[in-house]
Structures are given as C-alpha cells and as structure tokens.
C-alpha cells in the first residue's frame, strides 16, 4: 500500500477532501432523467455503527421495505454505493475510517446523518466528553439529517425521500396524513 494511503498523518480528524466534478457533456434533459434514475436506485453503504443500525436493518426488512423506493441494495463496499447512512455514534477512533470510506465513494455521493449521535453527538455530547465526534458533519458534508434516538424506520424513509427530493428537485411520494386523536398503540 502506498505511503500516501496511510491514514494516520496528522491532523487525524480533518474533514473529507474531494469535490464533485461537473459532467463533461452537460445536456439538461438527460441530466434530469439520469437524476431520476439515480434517485430511484440509491445504493446505501452498510455503515451501521450503533443502535441506529438496527433500525436501518429494520427498514430493509419486509415491514418497512426500503426496496419499494429502490434502495434495498446495501453494499458493504464504498466503491459500489452512493448513499452513506451514518447510523450511530462516530467516535474519534472511528473518524479516520469514516472519512476514508467517504473519500472512496464515487461521486455523486450523498450522506444521511441518521440519529441524534450522527447529527450532534446525541446523548453522548456532555460536558467533558472526550471520545466522540459531535456530529458527522464535522467530517463529511451531510445532505439530510434524520433526528431520533433511534429514529423510527419511517423516519429513515422520510430522510430518503428528502434526498430524492434533493437529487431530482421534487418529492415523489405522498406526504403521510396526520393521525388525529390519541395513539392507538402500535402500528
């Protein structure tokens, strides 16, 4: 492995580098169609760190079924994925690995910060904390923030819809109706 791949050159915790180049041939209607295709078949990377990973798994299963929206192909390798769902707390020990994985993803790539820990450090952001990164947006640019501890799978799906909105410019799925009255208990 080449020396420049060594991930430990200080400073250890630094934001990711690398932007997204403009397409070589830019034909707007073609880009629009490509954007729709891309948004409807996002391949998430399995980046489950902690508790939110279980809700990410649940969203891939039959009840919440993310494959209805095209994103069921969770790829372990960053080279084959375009959506990094940071599901869980990012510790300082893990930060270099996270940045490296983000940099290995080919463009266009998107990041969803799932859960309070990925947004701001969550419950572990207390006075005197020494081990976590207070929000993954200190390391990589985040496209959508999904709050919750852990967020329900429906919230993750809503975050996915927001990313699709960001890519294509419009929302494709109905907005869920508000449930009036008291909670019936369970779904």
């Amino acid at each position, binding site marked *: 492995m080449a020396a420049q791949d060594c991930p430990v050159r200080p400073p*250890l915790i630094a934001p990711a580098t690398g932007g997204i180049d403009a397409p070589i041939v830019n034909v707007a209607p073609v880009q629009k169609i490509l954007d729709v295709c891309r948004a409807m078949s996002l391949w998430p990377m399995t980046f489950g760190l902690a508790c939110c990973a279980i809700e990410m798994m649940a969203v891939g299963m039959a009840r919440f079924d993310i494959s209805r929206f095209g994103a069921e192909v969770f790829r372990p390798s960053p080279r084959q994925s375009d959506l990094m769902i940071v599901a869980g707390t990012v*510790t*300082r*020990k893990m930060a270099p690995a996270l940045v490296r994985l983000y940099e290995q993803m080919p463009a266009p790539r998107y990041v969803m910060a799932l859960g309070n820990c990925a947004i701001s450090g969550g419950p572990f952001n207390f*006075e*005197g904390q*020494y*081990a976590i990164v207070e929000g993954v947006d200190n390391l990589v640019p985040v496209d959508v923030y999904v709050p919750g501890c852990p967020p329900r799978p429906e919230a993750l799906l809503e975050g996915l819809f927001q990313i699709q909105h960001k890519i294509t410019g419009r929302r494709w799925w109905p907005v869920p109706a508000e449930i009036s009255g008291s909670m019936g208990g369970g779904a």
Partner: protein
Amino acid sequence: MTPDTASVTPDVLLAPLDPAYLADENPARTGLRWSAFLSADALPRAAALLLEAGWHLEDICGLDVREGLMAVYHFDRMTSPGRLAIRVLADRETPVLPSIADIYQGAEWHERETADFYGIAFTGNPNSMPLLLPEGMQGHPLLKDAAARAPLAALLAAQGREDTVLRKAEGFTLLEPAEDAKPAKPAKAKAAATEEGADNA
C-alpha cells in the same frame, strides 16, 4: 479443581497469603459475599489459588480515592456462587500492579481498560496498546480532581453493610473513617466549576 477445593471458602483459601483485611459480607446489601484487601505482591498467587479452586474473573475496575488508585477485582464461582471482591491499592505517583493475565487470560483486557482509564501500569500484561481509547490520546479520563476524591471509607465502609470482619492486620487503616467525616465535596461556590474541572483529563 478437585471436589474438596470446590467448597473451600475464600477466607480459608487466601489465609496463607496473609491478607490485610478479610470480611464476610451480606449479599442482600452489597451483592458481595466476601471482601478482602491484598498487597500487590500477593495478588498473582491469589489469582492462581482462585483459578485452581474454580473461580472466574468477573471484572477489574479502578477507583480513584484519596489514599491512591485502587483496583477492585470481582471473582465469582459457577458451581457455588458467591461474589468475592479483592482490593489492591496502588501508589498514585507510580501506580504499578502485577498483571494476572498469565493466569486469567481474560484479565488482559480488563487490565488494559483500567490502564486506559486510570493510568495503572500492569507489569506483565502482554499488550500495551490502549484498549478503548484512541491511541495517542493524552490523559486518563476517569481520574478525579483532587478536591472531588473521596476517602475509601466513605465508599466501602458506610453504614448498613452488615459485614463481619474475619481478619484485620495490625495497622490496617484503609477503612477507618477519615477525620473529616463529611463527603469530599468542595465549597458550594466552586461546586459548578470543579465538576467541570473534574471531567478534564
């Protein structure tokens, strides 16, 4: 482990090591059945005797008290349950304890974790890399500010333990209540600042 060693209680088992303190405890009050204070030199021999008698190591935890840095070892037995706490005190300036990782291999990780949090060096531990903390991190997170340290007696000799002292060496004063019996809290005006200060490594 032979059938007769299986039923030997710690007070008999550890007697040859001349523990400074040994007590019967009430599990309903503290969760412990026995507690003992040992010197650092006696620790490896105690671990060997305990392993042979069928005890397993539950955990090793550090404790930052006024008297120094203490390592508390919790042992238990699967065949005849009853928890034993062995406490060993290390000097604060150069906290060194012998490792029992050659006897209880599971102790390697517990010792590394205690070293991470308190800076206690366990001589003989096969792996010196930090276990839980990022490598290169300075400081030991669970050490307390001097003003926030409590005397050991305030923690381990409180009222209502319902323990029976079985042996106590001459000159053993670790569990005597401190002269200032108040808990080690700073004056109210500085309380907030000190709590934050206590969190800094």
